[in-house]
């Protein structure tokens, strides 16, 4: 391993204090903000899940009213999808995407900040509804025409406006990531040398760009139906309620891949490092991800097999759904091929990655069952479906993200997470997760319906529901271990140094945590696993041998650096996002809210105007930045 004298002091770059964070345009700080916010919303969504499980612990429970239960399952789903899992991916992507391609920042740093603040304010906006007469209660999919009933009660307005806000935020960061990946790679970083995580984020960004507009249109239609008397979902006027289902799932199914592909990218980074082998079949993993991206747009109607689309459409979507299992299977075999014959190090990150493979495979298999139309018609709206998507979302996305957290935490903070607590965390998570969600397969097959707040005694549902509730509390305990680990290790964790895992990709070439400018000198990339090639060569038998002179440039002191222009901090992105959310509050309470819409629009205009007029870097006009394009 490379031995380079490392500084032992760890200092967080960037100006301190609330103002420093509020105005930051540094992709690493924005990534950390995303991370903390996602953790917060993950805990809130988890508490909602615990309340749901407490209500279902036994037959005929009285803890929650039907109304409260509806709000809780709606907000649990909405929170976990839009405010927890997507932002976790955004956190890693923000922090590591520029580092992994050898860039100094994302293409549009202020747009990046705007996306973050819009996400945070949008989440707070949706949650404020709990204190304003009740949270959204129409499910995370908000089926019309149910969602347009009772326009006087503004719950579903909060839902639709909140999702629109989050959608704008996602479009902004997706365009940003695509521009960054396509134009700002370090010299020699060809597309097929990019780390798989970067590839997956590229696919995810395109998925969001092309899928969000359909649900945006649906959300506008619901809002207009509720507030302006349009008839998009008025069945008695001849409108077609299935329109919403198509518009929603044409977004909603690509969204599933938006949630899982980042985790697949993360484990494709983690597994090679802890197997000390290059990723088996790199191009297959990349192109399987791209194939999933394309096919993800052709399977949405398998969410609608019971809506009476007719045999032709159902067969087509059934076949497409079976086909999409193929690229997914390719990836799983490639990960297994990477592990095969490797020198495994079972760190916590690796354990979570292995857990990901196992749990995601189970979820994938129950997913294939849903492609069989007669079988799906039986499972539709039962707990079997709940079991399936928690295996892919928790067993897949969350375990994958936790692998990423244990793997990258040292790069973000300079200190390692505690491995002993980490292993407790892993095993508790795995046991609690299976105890919670495996029984739901049985419950679903017995016939327990989803989104129903009570079940009667003596129909065979008691035992497994109790088991699932116990499991949910085991997961809750495991999350306490995670929080404890983060809090303790941030202060007192073992000093990581630049490259604690003997890793393969260039983000480990720079300091931990990296300076604001990321790299003292932009690395010139000559190989797929560039950092590994700098450290190791191969002997005659194909085994890695450490190079005598690893090509690891020494870190420079600040006064040794030449002039590096970084974008200046700006409060306009946060201000503009604030304006958007003020306007959203107004729109939720039309027509009296028009005043707030006006105030919000003025704040927005102030933000956009200041944004376009301020120089990007105060002392330097040549390095351009972005504009707000009026979207």
């Amino acid at each position, binding site marked *: 391993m490379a031995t380079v004298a490392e500084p032992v002091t760890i200092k967080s770059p960037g100006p301190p204090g609330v103002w420093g964070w509020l105005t930051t345009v540094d992709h690493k700080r924005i990534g950390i903000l995303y991370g903390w916010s996602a953790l917060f919303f993950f805990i809130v969504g988890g508490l909602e899940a615990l309340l749901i499980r407490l209500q279902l612990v036994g037959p005929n429970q009285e803890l929650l009213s039907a109304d409260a239960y509806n709000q809780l399952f709606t907000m649990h789903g909405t929170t976990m999808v839009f405010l927890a899992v997507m932002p976790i991916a955004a956190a890693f992507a923000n922090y590591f995407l520029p580092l992994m391609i050898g860039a100094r920042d994302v293409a549009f740093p202020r747009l990046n900040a705007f996306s973050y603040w819009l996400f945070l304010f949008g989440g707070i906006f949706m949650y404020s509804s709990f204190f304003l007469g009740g949270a959204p209660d129409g499910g995370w999919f908000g089926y019309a025409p149910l969602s347009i009933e009772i326009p006087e009660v503004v719950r579903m307005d909060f839902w639709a406006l909140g999702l629109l806000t989050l959608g704008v935020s996602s479009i902004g960061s997706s365009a940003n990531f695509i521009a960054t990946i396509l134009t700002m790679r370090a010299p020699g970083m060809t597309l097929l040398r990019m780390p798989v995580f970067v590839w997956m984020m590229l696919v995810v960004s395109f998925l969001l760009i092309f899928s969000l507009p359909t649900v945006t249109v649906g959300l506008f239609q619901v809002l*207009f139906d509720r507030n302006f008397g349009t008839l998009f979902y008025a069945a008695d006027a*001849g409108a077609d309620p299935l329109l919403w289902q198509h518009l929603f799932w044409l977004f909603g199914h690509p969204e599933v891949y938006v949630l899982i592909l980042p985790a697949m990218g993360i484990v494709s980074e983690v597994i090679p490092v802890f197997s000390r082998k290059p990723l088996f079949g790199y191009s297959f993993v990349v192109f399987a991800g791209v194939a999933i991206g394309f096919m993800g747009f052709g399977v949405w109607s398998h969410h609608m097999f019971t809506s009476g689309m007719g045999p032709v459409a159902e067969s087509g979507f059934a076949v497409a759904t079976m086909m999409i299992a193929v690229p997914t299977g390719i990836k799983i075999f490639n990960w297994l091929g990477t592990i095969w014959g490797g020198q495994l190090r079972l760190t916590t990150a690796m354990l979570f990655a292995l857990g990901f493979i196992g749990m995601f495979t189970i979820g994938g298999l129950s997913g294939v069952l849903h492609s069989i139309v007669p079988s799906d018609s039986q499972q539709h709206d039962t707990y079997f479906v709940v079991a399936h998507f928690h295996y892919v979302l928790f067993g897949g996305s969350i375990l994958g993200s936790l692998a990423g957290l244990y793997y990258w935490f040292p790069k973000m903070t300079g200190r390692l997470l505690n491995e002993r607590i980490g292993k407790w965390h892993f095993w508790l998570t795995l046991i609690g997760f299976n105890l919670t969600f495996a029984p739901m397969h049985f419950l679903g097959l017995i016939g327990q319906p989803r989104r129903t707040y009570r079940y009667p005694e003596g129909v065979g549902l008691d035992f497994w529901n109790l088991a699932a509730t116990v499991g949910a509390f085991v997961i809750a305990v495991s999350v306490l271990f995670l929080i404890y680990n983060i809090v303790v290790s941030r202060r007192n964790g073992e000093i990581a140094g630049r490259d604690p895992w003997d890793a393969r990709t260039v983000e480990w070439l720079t300091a931990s945590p990296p300076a604001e400018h990321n790299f003292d000198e932009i690395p010139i990339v000559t190989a797929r696993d560039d950092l590994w090639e700098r450290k190791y060569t191969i002997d005659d038998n194909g085994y890695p041998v450490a190079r005598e002179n690893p090509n690891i440039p020494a870190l420079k002191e600040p006064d040794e650096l030449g002039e590096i222009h970084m974008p200046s901090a700006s409060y306009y992105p946060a201000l503009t996002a604030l304006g958007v959310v003020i306007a959203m509050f107004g729109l939720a309470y039309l027509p009296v809210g028009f005043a707030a819409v006006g105030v919000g629009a003025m704040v927005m205009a102030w933000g956009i105007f200041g944004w*376009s007029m301020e120089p990007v870097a105060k002392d330097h006009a040549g390095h351009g930045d972005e504009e707000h394009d009026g979207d």
Partner: protein
Amino acid sequence: MTDLAEVAAPEAHPPMAHVRKVAMWVFLGSECIFFGSLLSTFLLYRTKTLDGPGAEEIFNIPFTSASSFILLMSSLTMVLAHHAHERRDSRATRIWLIGTALLGATFLAGQVFEFTEFVQEGLKISTSPFASSFYVLTGFHGAHVAVGVLMLTAMAFMSASGRLNDSEGMNVELVGLYWHFVDVVWIVLFTVVYLLQV
């Protein structure tokens, strides 16, 4: 292994004009799906007129043809603005920018007039699913034109105060891309929503 001669100097930041163009194309791709979804809704509901007037009774094709022609001509003036900007002729740039904005505003005025007529003839937004989908589709297009007019006007002012800079803030080429896109969308809408329905 790598032909380092092919790659740029390590410190060189890619030209921002290029980076922003990539982002703009991506955004316009997203907009295609947005208008596609609105248009699908319209096609689903085009015959659901209930008791209200339908397409054949209400559309005034000669009038809308004229306003469509005006919008198409604004693409020409946009090209001229861009061309003048490339020649660094800021006075001509301003003239063509203002011209484009005026043509866009004329189109908008036509749309307002048209909507007013339709409402007077009994086609309100809540009259029928046909009416709802028609107004929301063409209304969103109109909103896009309005945003374009604002950007064009802002650029003309920025050019006048010498703040129009290719690498920072708004730039003629980006707004041009947006403007042409909005025009192309109208060509599709005018054909599908108006011409094919009467």
